[in-house]
């Protein structure tokens, strides 16, 4: 599995955009990049997945540069309820999701 590196924590305020960058320098050609979100006392929840360029859904956007050695999860106009741990995962054909410590995002009023 490609190793990922992401910030331990980030603080933000309601209404701001939050961008979390994940480094995965040894990503393999067939690897996809996936982000999960976990609220306290809940299981992780799939947010978004992408291979290259940009992916957008109703929750977030995922930006992947051409070299794919990093990716940025963008959360637009966060609210207090977006306070959670966000995990960046890189895997191919792999059911063993490798979560790491994730990024704790704290949104303040």
């Amino acid at each position, binding site marked *: 599995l490609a190793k990922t590196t992401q910030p331990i924590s980030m603080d933000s305020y309601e209404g701001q955009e939050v961008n979390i960058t994940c480094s995965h320098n040894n990503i393999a050609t067939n690897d*996809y990049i*996936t982000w999960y979100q976990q609220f306290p*006392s*809940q*299981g*992780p*929840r*799939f947010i978004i*997945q992408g291979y290259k360029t940009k992916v957008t859904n109703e929750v977030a956007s995922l930006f992947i540069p051409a070299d794919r050695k990093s990716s940025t999860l963008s959360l637009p106009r966060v609210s207090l309820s977006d306070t959670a*741990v966000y*995990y960046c995962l890189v895997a*191919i*054909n*792999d*059911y*063993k*999701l*490798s*979560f*790491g*410590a*994730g990024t704790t995002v704290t949104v303040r009023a």
Partner: protein
Amino acid sequence: GAGVSQTPSNKVTEKGKYVELRCDPISGHTALYWYRQSLGQGPEFLIYFQGTGAADDSGLPNDRFFAVRPEGSVSTLKIQRTERGDSAMYLCASSLGMAEYNEQFFGPGTRLTVL
């Protein structure tokens, strides 16, 4: 529709006791996974079922841990002779097939405390 459910939500036991943790996956999901999450860390893979068989149990920490899925639906994680170090959140997830690109749907977890 109903998501993945896990029972009990909390389990407190004494060192040396036997515990069973249950997982009900989403109906129709053939793949089922167990993870363990310690405080402040991300979930760690324990075991993966495809149907009734354990396709990969390489994450089970030792032979005190065992999991079954006899009918390809509900799964039970069994821990013998529990130790204080087994205290953690135990998460179950399911997916339509092998989660190459399928997202895994997680349950709320069972918090196990071994006194």
